[in-house]
């Protein structure tokens, strides 16, 4: 929260303040509700949720099966649901198939499990290029895929929201679910990177 009172407000700050103050004045919105939502999405709803789903799937084959068949229901088992995650599809990366997500039309993203999308995911360069040259985009994220690996791009243009179930890295046999969840990154659940064990 950086508020510099000596600096004149920018045009966009003025527009936001004007809009909110008018809506509050008319009794249409409660600023405390705005505060509560900001707090929830800034501090509680984020990729740690998705990481728990992934770690559960890695350690519980029955859960993984349920997750791949009905993502929404299996994710709700761990308590995650809501706006922009109403209808979830989870797709599995394997040694033969690498999946990567995009929304070319408007930046749709699975909020309950991954939180709000990063700027690059919403950006014109990512949305324009990942569908036509996914391997080049993945290389920019440091991910080189062998020619033998099939790349599947999922463009979430409709009401389904997607999440990638990354491959469990080698060398993690016997790890606890919590320790595995620590390894799982947002980018691996979008499909632009793999999950790796630090120092390996």
């Amino acid at each position, binding site marked *: 929260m950086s508020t510099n009172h000596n600096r004149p407000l920018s045009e966009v700050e003025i527009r936001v303040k004007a809009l909110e103050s008018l809506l509050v004045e008319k009794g249409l919105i409660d600023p405390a509700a705005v505060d*509560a939502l900001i707090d929830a999405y800034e501090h509680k*709803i984020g990729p740690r949720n998705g990481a728990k789903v992934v770690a559960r799937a890695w350690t519980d084959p029955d859960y993984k099966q349920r997750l791949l068949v009905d993502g929404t229901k299996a994710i709700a088992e761990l308590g995650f649901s809501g706006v*922009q995650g109403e209808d979830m599809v989870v797709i599995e990366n394997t040694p033969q198939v690498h999946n990567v997500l995009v929304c070319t039309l408007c930046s749709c993203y699975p909020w309950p499990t991954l939180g709000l999308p990063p700027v690059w995911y919403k950006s014109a360069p990512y949305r324009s290029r990942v569908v036509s040259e996914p391997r080049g985009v993945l290389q920019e994220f440091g991910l080189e895929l062998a020619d033998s690996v099939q790349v599947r791009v*999922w*463009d*979430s243009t409709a*009401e389904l929201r997607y999440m990638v179930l990354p491959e469990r890295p080698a060398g993690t046999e016997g790890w606890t679910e919590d320790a595995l969840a620590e390894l799982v990154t947002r980018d691996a659940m979008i499909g632009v990177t793999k999950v790796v064990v630090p120092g390996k």
Partner: protein
Amino acid sequence: MAISPEQALAAAAAGASARVAQAMTPRFNVGDHVMVSNINPPGHTRMPRYIRGKRGVIARDHGVFIFPDTYAAGRGERPQHVYSVRFTSHELWGTHGRANDELFVDVWDDYMERA
């Protein structure tokens, strides 16, 4: 009139699915070959340009959803099936595509014809 913080958090956790609880016979089945129509509506549509006129295969039937093209324009929900359609990279990008790579796009029933 304004929602309270508690109501706002409850609404966030509940979500608002565009899925419609209405049984409708799907026009396509998994494995069917389809062609995406070449439509160019001036209003809202969720059919990206890069699949127009392209051929794909129905990979999954997601069920019945509100149709945004009409819903965004105040012309009703027009519920219909949405399918995951699989396209080859070559079909969409010609010689710039990659053999074996694929794209999956979620496509409303109204946007497609049988190929």
